[in-house]
């Protein structure tokens, strides 16, 4: 289980260096422009600040993860990004222009909870959603039919939405978000409440869209899902970006400062504050976070001096750890 720790966040904790410059090219040259840019957007509900000067950049063709604990401001951010709500201040750009109504036809949205008319038949519903996005009735029906076949909903197209299982409703919802072939698909917690098989089908559809060159954005509170799927991420906490940018670079920036050790015998070597910043004992093995400037070889020597070491492996930090550390640093 993953536990979020409330550290509180400082404003200037974004670690998103050296990224936008490489990919942001001028639209005048006909080169790809960023799909989305949020520039210091802010939204408060009465006293509560849901999103606090958040900035992020989503490049075309990437899978972007918006991560954070429940209540961090993920859904509020998504809503502002696609124009359901308007930020109190700050700027939302889409496809290189300030967000306009017309942009909504080029994006698809999958809300966190199922948002379909319960009494409506599945196909009618999908055609309706497609038409709202500017498709003709005929095109919408054809594409919805294709997608239903692709996701195994074909026999259910004449059924009312309320007769479908939760997983099938989620698939229908997904089709509703992509039926008009949008360039940018926004999904709020797409995997929550899905059984593994449905999640797999959805994930495959996901990757298919990515391969077709679409830009995908999804929010999740599960770091492991994000770790597997995302090219870039934005970690938010209390409405502020804690980390933003290319996942690989973020990881590299943290370096291999984790060590997994399997040992038998005396564990005194873990007590040296010059070598070990912190550790987590999982029973079978212990995960050690090296102190700043510590040499892993020295830790190995210290370990072999008092215990029998069966395994000693340097590891990249998990997203979970990166997040906790970023939050901790911001707090310090």
């Amino acid at each position, binding site marked *: 289980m993953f536990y979020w720790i409330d550290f509180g966040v400082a404003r200037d904790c974004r670690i998103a260096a050296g990224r936008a410059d490489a990919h942001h090219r001028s639209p005048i040259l006909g080169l790809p422009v960023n799909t989305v840019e949020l520039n210091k957007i802010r939204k408060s509900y009465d006293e509560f600040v849901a999103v606090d000067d958040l900035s992020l950049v989503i490049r075309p063709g990437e899978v972007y993860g918006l991560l954070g604990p429940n209540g961090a401001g993920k859904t509020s951010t998504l*809503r502002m990004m696609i124009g*359901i709500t*308007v930020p109190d201040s700050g700027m939302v750009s889409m496809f290189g222009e300030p967000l306009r109504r017309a942009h909504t036809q080029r*994006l698809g949205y999958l*809300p966190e*909870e199922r*948002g379909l008319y319960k009494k409506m038949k599945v196909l009618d519903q999908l055609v309706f959603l497609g038409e*709202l996005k500017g498709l003709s009735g005929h095109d919408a029906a054809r594409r919805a039919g294709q997608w239903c076949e692709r996701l195994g909903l074909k026999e259910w197209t004449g059924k009312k939405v309320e007769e479908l299982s939760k997983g099938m409703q989620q698939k229908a919802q997904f089709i*509703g978000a992509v039926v008009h072939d949008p360039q940018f698909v926004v999904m709020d917690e797409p995997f929550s409440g899905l059984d593994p098989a449905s999640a797999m089908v959805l994930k495959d559809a996901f990757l298919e869209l990515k391969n077709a060159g679409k830009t995908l954005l999804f929010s999740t509170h599960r770091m492991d899902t994000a770790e597997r799927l995302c090219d870039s991420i934005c970690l938010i906490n209390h409405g502020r970006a804690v980390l933003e940018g290319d996942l690989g670079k973020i990881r590299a920036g943290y370096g291999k400062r984790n060590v997994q050790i399997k040992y038998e015998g005396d564990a005194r070597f873990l007590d040296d504050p010059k070598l070990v910043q912190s550790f987590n004992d999982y029973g079978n093995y212990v995960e050690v976070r090296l102190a700043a400037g510590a040499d892993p070889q020295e830790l190995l020597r210290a370990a072999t001096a008092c215990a029998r070491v069966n395994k000693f492996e340097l590891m990249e930090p998990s997203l979970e750890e990166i997040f906790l550390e970023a939050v901790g640093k911001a707090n310090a």
Partner: protein
Amino acid sequence: MRNTWLIIQREYLERVRQRSFLVLTLLLPAIIVGAFVIPSKLSKMKNSKTQRLVVVTSTPQFGEIVRQQLVAGTKPGEGVSADADADKDKDVDDDDKPSRDYAIEVDSNSSELERTALRNRVTSGDIDGYLWLSDDAVAARKVTYYGRETGGFIEKAWLRGQLDRAILLEELAQRGVGGAQADELLKPVKLETMHLEAGRETKANDRGAFFAVLIMVMLLYMAVIFYGVSVMRAVLEEKNSRVMEVMLSSATSTELMAGKLIGVGAVGLTQIGIWIVMAGVYALPALAASASTGEIRIAPLTLAAFALFFLFGYFLYSSIYAAVGAVITSEQEGQQLQFIILLPLIVAVFMMGPVMRAPDSPVAVWTSMVPFFSPVLMYVRIAVQPPPVWQIALSLVLLVVTIAGILILCARIYRIGILMYGKRPTLPEILKWLKYAKG
């Protein structure tokens, strides 16, 4: 525009296709027929049992007059009370008919002994009752009816009328006036009112106007309750099922609200259209008959006013319902607020009586200007007695301005409310939304 049109279509088709639409469309006329037609038919139906009465008078002649009045009253066109107008005056005559036949036995023995004997006959079931018309009683105009069934309210009124007439006939006979002469003297007055406007006279039809008003007010009231609540419920459902978010990622809140109001309104009009056709088919023979005599005629102005005020009334109230749907989080909360929304309409319905009685009184003029009342009260005035054009125009302008204002306010509440989950906002919070949602 395209989005609004798509939303209208969806709202309309989904509702019309639902089984509940068909059920309501068929059931409501059935209920109305059940509630109005059957009891009135029943009350007109003659009690199959003949009422056997004994009329006790001091003279057999007077007894005979009473007998004729009571028996003849059951057969218009014959007997004493029948006159040439009887057939034409069907409406009036309907009310004059007793609900049962009478078999009258005249008895000119008004002794106390006879009274006891009659009492025994009533007890034994030989007769149903007796009327005590002794000279004293007649002189005092205080007649007593003794019987097992003392009869209903309408029957008593009829009986009294017939006795009035019998006593008058007897008095006239004693003064040497009888037969056709007496009938001539007792001929009732019929008042016909003509409406004079711009030198044109039209036969004022109070009865037709009354029913036109009543039907319209009933339809408006029902439409507001059914379709307004339906709008509210639909908004609530969209909000709770989060469909709202999907919709808002494609359409604006104004498009959503407009589409919903118009779509549901169109369903209402369809339903009412079906009812009008049904009523037309049902009432066609009667309508054809009354059209020839000009009995029930609804002026084109009344019809136009109906359509206009009906639509405006619907939009006024249902947009408030839409805003309420956006604010509340459950239907129970909605029920508490429903009464408040309906209150102006209920007040307007209560005002109907006074306004109908005096359509030109200052109270009627000014209340019919108030936008929340005017769909009912201005229509009432137009139907009863067309007011000056400037008054109609002013009330329409006020109504349209109010609707526009309410729509704008409600659209703002709607826009923010539909994305608010959890607790219901307080009034100050809603006022803050109004300020906040200008953009």
